[in-house]
């Protein structure tokens, strides 16, 4: 899976490359608009992550260029501006997803994962992790071929965990993923704990080992 990251902030570029690299993706980077355009014309990528504010051009123009060369790469736009206009512009031009800085790397990874699945397998593939099988099309989960009843939030959690397997995921990343911007309202992360507890119990009841490891004071790791 080839991913092109077009981002002028080197530190950010490195973090993304490093994190996605560990998740098994092959990452290429471009530091500005020209370099980005050159790379998308030189090679095929499954997914392109582009910052809007780039030297010599805008990430939105990258989207235009990709559409012009009829690339079927998935496009994720990153912006420092949380502007609805930018978002609608990006999506209107044909970007598949939009993330506002700052974002969680685990969130980016989950988005990339979902996007690639949607783009390249038409969503018809199932996600397999050891003895767990997730079928995104019907949102069903099987453990040892037997269905497990999960709530919507528990299902979202499981998919997020699998996309970020072997990584430490912070509680705030989980909360942001499950509730979006609204989670600021929640007051504490206690409610996440109960969802995780339920998910863990249901998976173990179905015969799976305890994959959800608590990292003390930090978050969780799925492995």
């Amino acid at each position: 899976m080839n991913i092109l990251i077009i981002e002028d902030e080197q530190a950010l570029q490195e973090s993304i490359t490093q994190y996605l690299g560990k998740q098994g993706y092959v990452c290429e980077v471009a530091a500005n608009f020209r370099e980005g355009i050159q790379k998308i014309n030189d090679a095929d990528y499954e997914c392109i992550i582009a910052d809007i504010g780039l030297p010599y051009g805008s990430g939105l123009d990258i989207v235009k260029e990709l559409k012009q060369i009829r690339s079927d790469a998935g496009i994720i736009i990153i912006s420092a501006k949380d502007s609805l206009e930018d978002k609608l512009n990006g999506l209107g031009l044909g970007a598949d997803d939009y993330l506002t800085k700052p974002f969680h790397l685990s969130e980016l990874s989950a988005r990339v994962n979902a996007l690639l699945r949607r783009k390249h397998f038409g969503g018809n593939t199932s996600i397999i992790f050891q003895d767990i099988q997730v079928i995104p099309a019907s949102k069903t989960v099987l453990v040892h071929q037997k269905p497990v009843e999960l709530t919507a939030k528990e299902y979202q959690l499981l998919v997020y965990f699998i996309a970020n397997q072997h990584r430490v995921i912070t509680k705030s990343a989980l909360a942001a993923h499950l509730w979006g911007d609204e989670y600021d309202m929640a007051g504490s992360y206690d409610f996440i704990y109960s969802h995780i507890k339920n998910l863990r119990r249901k998976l173990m009841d179905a015969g799976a080992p305890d994959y959800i490891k608590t990292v003390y004071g930090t978050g969780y790791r799925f492995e």
Partner: protein
Amino acid sequence: MPVRRIISRRCMVRVTGSNSMKLLTKNTIWFLLIMLPLLAAGGIYLYQEFDKELKKEMDEELVNDKIQWEIYFESIPDNSPIFGITTPEFSIRAANGPANAQPVLQTIMQYQEVEHKKVPYRQLEQVISIRDKFYLLTIRKSLIEKDDLIKNIALVMALAFIGLLLFTILVNRLISRSIWQPFYQSLDKMEKLQLEQMHDLSFPDTTVTEFNRLNEVLLNATSRIYHDFVIMKELTEDAAHEMQTPLAIAQNRLELLLQDEALQPAQLQSIAQTHEALQRLSHLNHSLLFMAKIGNKQFVPAGKISIRAVLEKHLRLFEELIRDKELLVSTDISNDLLLLLHPLLADTLISNLLGNAIKYNYPKGQITIQLNEQLFSICNTSEYPPIPATQLFQRFKKNASNLANSNGLGLAIVKKIADTNNLKIYYLHKDHEHHFILRQHRPHH
């Protein structure tokens, strides 16, 4: 800025609360205070002059009569019965000499049959000599008609004076009003002025130099304020934007660092805490930026929003939170409330109010929501004390400092949305319950 606006309101209230009055009223009162004594003094002086003049006139008549009589007395014999006549108006009788050189003129009171009372008379008395005989001659003239005359004149004069006074006041008021008209127009404009509209403030030219000067000064002051405001606004926005990238770098670096398997639990925990703090910082930044955008009117409503739909969406969204806290939510929706709002602002409004009602509630507490075509009200039980009116809706004023996850901006955002969208938000605390009521703003005037 809302804070500045509140301060200026307060000053205005204090000014009008003291013994101030309208310019026109003050003008009229001063005019009356000066004109009334002046007119009264003038009236009295005129009356006295008139009275004196009339007496002089009468005295001349009396002296004239006396001369006529003396000429007549010379022509009649000494034994004529004339020298013995006594009437109220005329009498002559023999007297001892010597003769007076000048007649004695005085005002006396004498009984008059017709009037049945004593009335004033002007009297001339003189001892005269006719052919070496001495007589006391007394001639009197009633003053009663003259008095009536003076009274009538005084009355006419008083009426004329009062009429003149009223007319002057009226004219004065009319002139003042028209002269001060541009001043009142400027005042009205300044009173209704909002910070965001300061750039297109203008005053029509007046014919009064001072008013033109005032308008110019006001224009300069407001454009300076607006200029500062724009700079501040841009600075805030730019700073907020520029902060997002370094925040993203730091946050992502920490997230990567968390993946390091060699780290001890204590190190992991402090990285997680730092990550958390950065998270809060970025949320704070985000909220401030959002407020700035609302203030800039960047969210233009496209049409009426059904608050009922927004509410139902958020009740679903917060379902787990409500269930986790075992809150009892009762809704009384009699009708939909339609508001002219940008969808994002409608979401934020309801989400912040409902979120607060959940966040500041205690387990097994209650939330009561009322919705009709007039208002949206939300009320929640809480252990937190009432929010002091001075801190309500203010940025960073937390009523509960122990809530680590609150950035104290939720209500400030609600207030900002209300202020910029012709809505009113009210707060009251009753029986340990916090009530927030949202309704459409109807202008008072």
